[in-house]
């Protein structure tokens, strides 16, 4: 949907700037009350809305290179809002918001069938295998704008949607119907010390994300910037997270390719 008044919030992550420090992950967990356990050894049971992958070019020293790839929810649009996870949820516990382009998750609606997890190729959807238990005193530092989630349901990154709601409330109070670019920014964007994460409205030519990714509306948002790519472009998930890099091997790692013999 590209109606002029509709937003399409998205993210551009410059992989050549990311140092893999993990500040985005920490900020995300604190902002969104993401639960953790005393023993987080098994990462397949951990919840991290923002996860950093470490990629290598597979070459031996001195030609070896590595790249850190932060992976929030890709906020897929699919075709007309039929993102991989939204279309499969049997209880409408997740929704594609045409006005913002954000894939929501309703914790109190989810009954934990995990079909969305099976459908998501990016593994952004994670399950609450346990009830959250906070270290003593920490419950006082939880974000009051984000509800904590209980055992047995799925959760994921929602581009800090509560911040959008708060910013819109403020704008309404001030008699405005629109936001400035800086008024709605995600926690990970603000926490990144390298400035590798840029967030904004992909439909707005004045926003940095639009200028960096240069999404082509006639080709379902494919980037026109030759340095930009999206993860698993071929699948048709039509994500709204773009990655920037000047390194060929990193761009190639973003998708699968049938090798010609």
């Amino acid at each position: 949907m590209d109606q002029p008044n509709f937003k399409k919030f998205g993210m551009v992550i410059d992989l050549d700037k990311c140092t893999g420090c993990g500040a985005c992950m920490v900020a995300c967990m604190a902002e969104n009350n993401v639960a953790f356990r005393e023993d987080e050894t098994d990462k397949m049971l951990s919840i991290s809305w923002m996860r950093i992958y470490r990629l290598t070019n597979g070459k031996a020293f001195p030609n070896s290179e590595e790249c850190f790839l932060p992976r929030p929810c890709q906020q897929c649009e699919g075709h007309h809002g039929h993102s991989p996870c939204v279309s499969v949820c049997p209880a409408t516990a997740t929704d594609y918001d045409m006005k913002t382009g954000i894939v929501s998750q309703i914790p109190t609606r989810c009954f934990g069938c995990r079909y969305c997890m099976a459908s998501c190729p990016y593994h952004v959807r994670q399950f609450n295998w346990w009830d959250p238990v906070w270290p003593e005193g920490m419950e006082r530092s939880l974000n009051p704008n984000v509800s904590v989630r209980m055992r047995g349901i799925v959760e994921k990154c929602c581009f800090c949607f509560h911040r959008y709601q708060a910013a819109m409330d403020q704008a309404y109070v001030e008699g405005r119907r629109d936001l400035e670019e800086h008024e709605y920014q995600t926690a990970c964007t603000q926490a990144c010390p390298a400035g590798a994460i840029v967030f904004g409205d992909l439909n707005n030519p004045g926003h940095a994300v639009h200028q960096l990714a240069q999404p082509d509306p006639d080709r379902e948002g494919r980037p026109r910037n030759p340095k930009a790519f999206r993860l698993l472009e071929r699948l048709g998930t039509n994500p709204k997270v773009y990655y920037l890099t000047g390194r060929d091997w990193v761009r190639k790692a973003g998708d699968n390719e049938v090798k010609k013999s």
Partner: protein
Amino acid sequence: MDSVLIPKGVERCSIGKFALFIAVVGAVLLWGVVAMLLIYIKGLNQTNMNNAYGFALWIWADLAVIALGGGAFFTGLLRYIIGKDELKHIINYAVLIGFVCYSSALLILAIDVGQPLRAWFIFWHANVHSMLTEVAFCLTCYFGVLTIEYLPMVFENRQIDRVPFFHHLGHNMHATMAIFAATGAFLSFFHQGSLGGVTGVMFGRPFGYRTGLLIWPWTFFLYTWSAAAVGPCFTIFITRITEAVTRKKLVKDNVVDLLAKIAGWMLLTYIIAKIIDTWYWAAVTAPAAGFTLMDFYSNNPGSAYGLWILIAEIGLCGVVPAIMLVTPNIRRRPAALFVAVTLAVIGACLNRWVMVLQVQAVPVLSFETWFTYFPSWQEIATTILPVAYGIILIALSYRYLPIFPQEQELNPIEGGK
């Protein structure tokens, strides 16, 4: 002691022997119940599922038992709608097996969801685009139909039949059974199909994704077709096991032969369609997503999902039993028939296994590796639980209800009773 409950003209083992059998199977059932309670009380952390394996052993078991329970709807369709009258001698058992399979599927689903108390949301907040919604509605309705089909058998119990109300109710239900058979076939087409659609629509998972017709991926039709093919095979498989356990012939050969022949032709046509689907997927659909066939089968530790699984599913457990079943000289040999239906049953289970488990195992992001999973004892116990329940229900039904109409004729009692 319980002789007044046993149908007239048939022989059953002593109550002591029967009680011992039930106690042994009941112990297994109890083990499953303990695991189920642990899962309900402590949550799904009792399983070995993880964020990569959102679907695992239970969903496979669900899909498998529903496919195997397909004998009820397909035999009902053949008997009541197409008019294959001989099948009236095996339809009762097909319905009972279907009832066991579907009630097991519902039980497993109830354990599988993270928030069981919210399970009704699937009906209340239904998303019409979700294949799982279609599964839930059709499955629940069809379980209702199976209950209606099973109840007249219960009413035929010697003591219950003496109550005029139940006698007439059972009689009238029998008279209208064609309507329920047709309803069952209609519902089964959609829920078997939508189970196929569960994986087929996942366009983010190239191993499972299929193109298709309108809103339905090809797996939609393949699942219905395969259930119609292997459902009757499973009915024959369980019938033969029951005959071995009771040491009695319970169904005449011509009845089994007819069902086996039809199942054989269904299996043969299904496997041809499956081969075409696999070829199209490997040559067109998967490469469009950036994958070759061997990306799905190689480079995985221990070759748990090596190419052997595809060969076993389509060749050994598809083509081979199909040819065996459509060849009269082979299927009329009891041992060969048993081998053929066993292979067909394994083939359907393998198909459901890869479409649930392998879909999760295959890495999609180029920088991820294969995901591994082995079920916890709680998952295994709760998967065996419905098997134990099924054995008990079949044992009780066999002992107290006239399930096999030909039993008396095939096993005359000396001097009569």
